[in-house]
């Protein structure tokens, strides 16, 4: 792979990201970058932009709270405290996990048990079980069969169908 100098020697324009800031128009290979008001001189922050910054006071303040360096290593030697999985700390995941687990418990245990208890209350005896009877009747001069379902706490339901014997 050729380096920048070799590229220059080959007479090819450098790709725009390798060109010195403020010298070239991206993509064209000619003209000063500053000539185009839409294209600024720099693209990235450089260390020189932050020479006046002094972070030591703030960092020092943070370090005051920590103590000696290498505390992490000491913690590892002692054995770090066991923490629950990180996803449980994320509220959405925690809420979803809670809902899924609660829902599963309710579905599997709660309704089944209640239904059994309810059944024991509603149908304590043989007499209260649902019954079906079939009778004969004449409807509009034709013989019909009437099936009636009777069960506790439910309105009586009847079906009938007209036979074809008399037709």
């Amino acid at each position, binding site marked *: 792979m050729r380096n920048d100098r070799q590229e220059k020697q080959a007479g090819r324009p450098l*790709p*725009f*990201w*390798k060109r010195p800031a403020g010298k070239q128009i*991206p*993509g064209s290979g000619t003209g000063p970058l500053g000539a*185009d008001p*839409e*294209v*600024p*001189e*720099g*693209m*990235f*922050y*450089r*260390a*020189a*932009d*932050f*020479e006046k*910054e*002094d*972070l*030591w006071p*703030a*960092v*020092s303040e*943070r*370090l005051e709270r*920590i103590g*000696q*360096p*290498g*505390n*992490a*290593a*000491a913690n*590892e030697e002692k054995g770090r405290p066991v923490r629950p999985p990180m996803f449980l700390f*994320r*509220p*959405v995941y925690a809420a979803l996990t809670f809902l899924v687990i609660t829902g599963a418990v309710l579905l599997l245990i709660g309704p089944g048990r209640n239904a059994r208890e309810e059944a024991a209350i509603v149908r304590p005896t043989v007499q209260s079980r649902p019954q079906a009877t079939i009778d004969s009747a004449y409807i509009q001069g034709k013989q019909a069969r009437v099936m009636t379902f009777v069960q506790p706490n439910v309105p009586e339901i009847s079906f009938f169908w007209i036979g074809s014997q008399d037709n």
Partner: protein
Amino acid sequence: MEDTEVISRCLSGEREAFELLVRKYQAPLLALSANILRDLEEARDVTQESFTKAFVNLGNFDHDRSFKSWLYSITVHECIDRKRRAGSFFRKLDGLGREAGPRPFAGPEEAAPTDHGLNRLLQALSPRERTAVSLSFVEGYNAREIGQVMNCSEKTVRVHIFRSKSKLRRLLKEKRYA
């Protein structure tokens, strides 16, 4: 003074020695985090946090490795983590009503050589792409070194850089000829 010597002094309990490391690396580290985050206040905070983490984990530092790369690695992960957390649902809810988008520079005293045009284009890149591009173009790192910093393979780094270049090229073209 060599970094390893300073680290040894720090580990022997001389906390003030760490000041030398902070003063040596604060500017490049700030530039790196500013390039990834595109928010100077956030970049300052991340840089301070990175130094703090480095101090805490100084005992785990592998002396065969470059301290600068190790520090960069901590900063990059902190930046990406910060970006990820900033994109979370609750953080977005928390930020409702505030001014949207990053706040690159606060005042004229903070010279902002990149705070327009292309700077905005860079926001079209993902944090990982910005990291790879920034380390490549600003620091002059090669794919292997970037891979060590970003904790990924050389191939992944090349993909990040290729995609970044393609995106930037396309966006520049749109901007130029629209």
